[in-house]
């Protein structure tokens, strides 16, 4: 643990409060359905794929392209996940397979 117990607990509480706020919002705001602002509907449609794209980049943000190993393990593992997923469309297989490839690469190949 790099953070203290208090700091860690605060993080959990903040995530919990925001998530619950979002899930409870319709029961507080829209007592009758069908009165949702169009902007909210639009953002609700387009944000999920955009956010997933951002999260992928967020996960890969610490790669140094100009330093050994030049992001090659990540490139290979990402390709493995995409390949596995296009092939079988099995979430668990794609996740476990890609992670195994990555762990093998960083532990044994690009040491």
């Amino acid at each position, binding site marked *: 643990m790099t953070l203290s117990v208090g700091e860690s607990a605060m993080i959990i509480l903040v995530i*919990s409060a925001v998530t619950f706020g979002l899930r409870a919002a319709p029961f507080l705001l829209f007592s009758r359905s069908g009165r949702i602002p169009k902007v909210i509907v639009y953002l*609700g449609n387009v944000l999920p794929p955009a956010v*997933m*794209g951002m999260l992928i*980049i*967020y996960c890969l943000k610490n790669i140094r392209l100009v330093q050994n190993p030049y992001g090659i393990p990540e490139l290979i*593992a990402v390709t493995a996940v995409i390949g596995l997923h296009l092939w079988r469309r099995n979430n668990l297989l794609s996740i476990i397979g890609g992670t195994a490839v990555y762990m093998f690469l*960083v532990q044994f190949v690009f040491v």
Partner: protein
Amino acid sequence: MKNAIKAAFPYTIPVMLGYLSIGIAFGLLFENAGYNFIWAFCISLLVYAGAMQFIAVSFFSGGLGLIQIAVMTLVVNFRHIFYGLSFLERFGKMGFKKWYMAFALTDETYSLLCGIKPPENVDDKKFLLCVALLNQSYWIAGSVIGALAGSMITFNTQGMDFAMTALFLVIFLDQWKAYRTHIPALTGLVCSIAVLAAVGPANMVIPSMVLIVISLMLMRKAVNPMLEEEREEGGEK
């Protein structure tokens, strides 16, 4: 109540399989970041959001302020604001339990509840509550098992955090297939890469989200018709 559990359980089996395995993966990562099964229990009890908990693991290494964490949670879980809309009436009859039902509306519970009804001899309110409670218990059990396993089995975990990247890639690919227009997905990638190049890895989250929302709002007139087209086609099936 016994009847309601019996009626609800079979419907929850697919969620059980998914939650146990993803929960175990989460528990392993969380344990690896220095948080034991008690922490895993607490976060799965209080937060109860799959992808968000995986991202949260990276928050615990420090470096992000609480406001950044709140904004990130808001954006990542924004879709959940719509889930309750389908249940305003059904949950509305449940008294104070409605707030637990709202809390428990994960992607999986939402899609499960949308598609099922209780058998005639079972009360709808109890049935809904049982489905929600069972699902969350699987999630908590999975993450606790994962954290315990991580503390007992010692192996070289270097690189295991790639599971998070892989999870997001898989969701991204599924959404790519489901959406007719790829503009939102590409906007997410392009904006975050641009921000990462401009400000570096430490502070990329909020600027990326701001840029993504602004870009999507600017393209609203162009993108909205493509989404409507999609919905109409979906309706014809």
